[in-house]
């Protein structure tokens, strides 16, 4: 049994700043290999395991990724409070209606141009696609303007070339809008219900977007195939993938899914970092619906963010897809100032697979057997 003073450090909570792929590899081997005869005390002393369990109950790195941190209140003063009240009046009474009007105008322009183009130019595909791309960029700019988005783009604009994919960290569905404003991406998204789903099936389809459903088991292979087909096609819009698979609170990155990195093409990382100075752009899907989230953005002063287009990466010889994903995650996290966490984002919706527990069990069993043989 491992030395009682040493915590069996699991791959879960430590080394948040270093890339950690131990979730995929056998883990949990303690550094102190205990020797000597196996005693009753070694079997009875379960304190390291219990300490880990209690540590997980008290604070765990996974829940921290999805915590929306409320901003520090600054209005608790006699003279700041009336100022804040004036601010509220301006935001809700003046800015919000103006923004709603701007957005409505944008939608009218978009729909009145899009529907004719979509219907009339059925035959001339190339021209239709070009106009539709431009129109989508236009409506995204309207969206961004409706929250007074202050977006700073760094780095060279992505070019439309075949055999390249873009990956980015994910904070909210507005990531897509912010990025789409600059370049017409085709994105792979979860199919949502409600008005968002309607938008997805009509307009975004024309961009060549791909839909998946987390709850469907067989979905993975069909989606992988669609991804590969899209990337091979030369005329398709560049594909944007959010490999985290879920919205994270913009302070951490969870593990990237390797699907995007197995397609055999160049991967261009994009880092998006929101400034929480006026509003927290993290969409906590457990707490808010998307509509409420948008309303919250529209009643704030501004949405400030930075977008960095980073250097394209290719799979190095001898590197696995998982290592490649971790390397790209490291690049994005360093640029955007995020901490890396070795958990899979999908654990938000499902339980961890038994293989993690089995790894711990295996290492403990091996220690015992080894010490038995030594006697």
């Amino acid at each position, binding site marked *: 049994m491992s030395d009682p003073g040493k915590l069996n450090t699991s791959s879960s*909570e430590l080394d948040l700043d270093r890339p950690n792929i131990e979730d995929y590899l056998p883990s949990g081997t303690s550094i102190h290999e205990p020797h000597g005869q196996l005693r*009753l005390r070694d079997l*009875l002393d379960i304190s390291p395991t219990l300490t880990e369990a209690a*540590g997980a109950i*008290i604070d765990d790195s996974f829940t921290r990724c999805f915590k929306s941190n409320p901003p520090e209140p600054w209005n608790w003063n006699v003279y700041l409070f009336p100022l804040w009240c004036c601010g509220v009046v301006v935001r809700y009474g003046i800015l919000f209606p103006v923004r709603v009007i701007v957005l409505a105008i944008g939608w009218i322009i978009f729909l009145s141009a899009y529907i004719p183009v979509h219907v009339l130019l059925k035959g001339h595909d190339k021209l239709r696609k070009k106009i539709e791309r431009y129109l989508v960029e236009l409506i995204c700019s309207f969206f961004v303007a409706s929250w007074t988005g202050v977006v700073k783009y760094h780095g060279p604009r992505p070019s439309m070339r075949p055999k390249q994919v873009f990956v980015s960290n994910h904070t909210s569905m507005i990531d897509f809008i912010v990025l789409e404003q600059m370049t017409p991406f085709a994105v792979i998204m979860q199919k949502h219900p409600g008005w968002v789903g309607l938008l997805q099936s009509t307009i975004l389809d024309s961009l060549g977007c791909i839909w998946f459903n987390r709850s469907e088991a067989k979905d993975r292979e069909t989606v992988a195939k669609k991804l590969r087909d899209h990337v091979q096609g030369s005329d398709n819009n560049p594909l944007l993938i959010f490999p985290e698979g879920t919205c994270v609170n913009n302070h951490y990155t969870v593990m990237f899914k390797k699907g995007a990195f197995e397609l055999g093409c160049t991967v261009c990382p994009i880092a998006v970092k929101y400034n929480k100075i006026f509003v927290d752009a993290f969409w906590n899907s457990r707490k808010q619906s998307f509509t409420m989230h948008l309303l919250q953005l529209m009643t704030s002063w501004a949405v400030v963010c930075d977008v960095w287009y980073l250097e394209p990466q290719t799979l190095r010889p001898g590197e696995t897809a998982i290592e490649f994903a971790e390397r790209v995650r490291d690049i994005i996290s360093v640029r955007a100032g995020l901490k890396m966490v070795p958990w899979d984002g999908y654990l938000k919706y499902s339980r961890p697979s038994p293989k993690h527990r089995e790894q711990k069990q295996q290492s*403990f069993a091996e220690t015992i*057997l080894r010490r038995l043989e030594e006697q």
Partner: protein
Amino acid sequence: KKTTISVFRPLRFPISFLLRSLHCRPRVTQTSLPFAAAAAAAATARRAQHFAAMGNSSSMLTQYDIEEVQEHCNHAFSQQETVSLYQRFCQLDRSSGGFISADEFLSVPEFAVNPLAQRLLRTVDGLNFKEFVAFLSAFSPRATLQQKIEFIFKVYDSDGKGSVSFKDLFDVLRDLTGHFISEEQREQVLKQVLEEAGYRKDSSLVLADFVKILGNPGLKMEVEVPVD
């Protein structure tokens, strides 16, 4: 000695404090703590949405609540730590029922991959906040060695009969090693170490035995509660 702690942040927001007091903050008594926790959590959730800029929703605990909880766990945690634990409790108790269900515990992946998770769940499922803190008090740096050994004893003695049989030892060892050791090997290992320590296979261990075996040179079983 009463200490004003940061729980009384409402005093810093003049209007929000008035509005909050309009919501009838529950004055908690011994029996109503489970329900108070539920009411507090529900009210907190609602309030968090309304006053998004008004700071942490944890300050629903009154000084009385905190002292009561501390009494119950023998002052294993400081007041700040108790407030942090309450924030964590509310965070885990997503259904705001005043207790954390087994499902909510298992939604913490770090806990779910622990080999002893199922065994611990039997004790920890459905605890209200006071019992939750009492459960965790064995992991405080202020807890005595005796308390830690008692905790381990209780994990082994899951049916609470006061003694740990060979079957209990076998079950825990099975949880810890999974299917990487065969049943016979496990039995053999246990018999061997028991005999070497002077016990027979059919003898059951009581708390005093545990103290004797684990007491020297002591245990390190501590978890730090993060305080904002």
